[in-house]
């Protein structure tokens, strides 16, 4: 488990020293009921299609992942070596739970799943991703997406 107390002291210190943005307030949109949600996934695992551009150091843009993308077409070029990749190698749903979301839609727990999903590369400072994230929100709204689940790595 990743309670910080379970890490070595050096690792714990490193994680606690990572810069985190602070915000004066938190925006809060009233979400539709679960059965009316059309959900998109945003991952920060540095995922992308095999033939798309790999992520590089400091990259603030995102990559597009169509909903029908088979697991065999997705790779991860996140620059950090300090997190486990074996889970991703065994099961894409460990970091990009699209199969699970589709199952929840089929059982009626949520209304539906978006046609497109997205990945950033989480080693970049969030402030540098602001413009791309705001632009992406506009695109998702035009696509009828009314909710997003963000999945870290």
């Amino acid at each position, binding site marked *: *488990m990743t309670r910080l107390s379970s890490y070595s002291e050096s690792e714990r210190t*490193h994680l606690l020293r990572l810069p985190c943005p602070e915000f004066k307030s938190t*925006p809060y949109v009233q979400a539709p009921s679960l059965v009316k949600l059309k*959900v998109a996934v945003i991952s920060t695992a540095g995922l992308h299609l095999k033939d798309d551009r790999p992520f590089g150091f400091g990259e603030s843009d995102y990559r597009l992942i169509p909903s029908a993308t088979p*697991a065999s077409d997705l790779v991860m070029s996140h620059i950090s070596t300090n997190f486990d990749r074996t889970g991703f*190698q065994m099961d894409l749903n460990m970091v990009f739970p699209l199969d699970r979301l589709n199952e929840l839609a089929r059982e009626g727990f949520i209304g539906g799943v978006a046609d497109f999903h997205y990945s950033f590369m989480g080693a970049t400072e969030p402030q540098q991703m602001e413009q791309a994230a705001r632009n992406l*929100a506009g695109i998702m709204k035009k696509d009828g997406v009314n909710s997003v689940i*963000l999945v870290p790595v």
Partner: protein
Amino acid sequence: MGGLAHYIEDEGIATTQISLIREHTEIIKPPRALWVSFELGRPLGVPNNPEFQISVLKHALQLFAVRSGPVLEDFPHDAPDSGSAPAQVACPVNFSHRPAATSLVGQLTEQFTAEMDQMHSWYDIARKKKNRTTGVSGLSLSNVVRLLTGFIEEEIRTSLIEDPALPDKLRMSCEDIKAYYFEAVSAQPGQPTDSRSLADWFWGETSAALVINRIREICLEDTSGKLALHGKLLLVPRSQMHRFTG
């Protein structure tokens, strides 16, 4: 992650998220977050366990029903494979000939390529079974091996270093080698699936790890500024560095 939630919610789309480090989420205060006690890299908890993954997702999605925020809730379960001591990877491939960390380049390369050959059948089985491989460099495996073993040989490195894409190629090629080993060993029956057992095996027992570490050491000595970051941060995990630095 929480910063992205702020920006997207501010544009009018409701967000929920999984949080892996509660202390960070407490500072960033995204609109809705479900903290999970899983390790970095495993935000859904455990591989090939749809029931558990669905449970995580349902908890995160149910935060949309909360009418005011920010809200930070704790997922009530640890990952099913957490808490147990690391298991031994019982690899039928013989790694007992791993050379010393200080061994000559030629000997290291020889052992590394022999290991790769021994693992190949398992890698093929894994690729057929999963219908995927997670190599990311875009290079063939033989070219990955050629690049990495060439880089640790001074004479060949001199020509490689001219390539402006070398830093990214090196980083991704090292990831490809790790993916090759992990995918291969995961095809063998009865192997542990927890990350610590697998990482301890790779970094503690394989010649591939020694090659990557040798690359790290060379990068650290680079004076051009192109490779120093790789040496410091991008090739060997902090949690495994003790094996090479004492």
